[in-house]
């Protein structure tokens, strides 16, 4: 009976190494750390929110920004509210 040899592709092994590297640093949620930071979480506080969006206007994932689930959801909600009020853009070039 022939045995099935399962080899892991290089692409997959690279992906695993990359994921390990990404999770190597223990990130702290900056919102949980200080109350002042939490007070900034407002849809009107555009300058603060802009620190959490990419150049294209996309919301940064929590694995990049280090936010906890609770604050990431709150942040996303505030950013979306700011977008609806034309304080933040939805996409890079609207014109």
């Amino acid at each position: 009976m022939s045995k099935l040899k399962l080899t892991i592709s290089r692409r997959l092994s690279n992906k695993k190494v990359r994921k390990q590297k990404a999770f190597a640093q223990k990130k702290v949620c900056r919102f949980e750390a200080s109350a002042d930071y939490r007070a900034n979480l407002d849809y009107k506080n555009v300058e603060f929110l802009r620190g959490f969006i990419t150049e294209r206007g996309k919301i940064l994932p929590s694995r990049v920004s280090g936010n906890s689930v609770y604050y990431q959801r709150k942040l996303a909600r505030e950013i979306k509210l700011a977008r609806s009020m034309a304080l933040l853009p939805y996409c890079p070039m609207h014109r």
Partner: protein
Amino acid sequence: MLRYETLVLTPPDITREQIGLLENQIATAAKDSGGRLMQFDEWGKYYLAYPVKKNNYGCYFLARVEIPEGPAPKVVSDLTRAMQIKCVDYVWRHVIKKLEAGASLEYTRPESVASTAKSKFDRKPGEFFERSASQRGFGGDQAAEDDQDSISEHE
């Protein structure tokens, strides 16, 4: 005491009378629920993040309302009716938010056109994003990777 705030986006050529009418409508909505209009801030003219009704500029107003606690506050529906029906001609967008009980009333507002005194001809397309994610201290690789939207990302 329950506190609500409304941010209103209006055309940049809104007249003083219309501003007065808007303020009155909000004050009436508050009074009908037994409360009062706490503050009515005029933010001024802003360069919008995207064109609204084919306009690149707009005026913002922030109104805060305080009402006593009681059964089923109807102030939110009154405010939406004021904005969507009575002031429909000069209100483009609005958002009503409930403020937390013990939260401070301070807020930071974005810089208006008046304060920066920058004409739209000075702005280059894409200038809206002044700092990239990498400059803000987040892993530049990760953010740049996400921005590329390549097929290999969806593995």
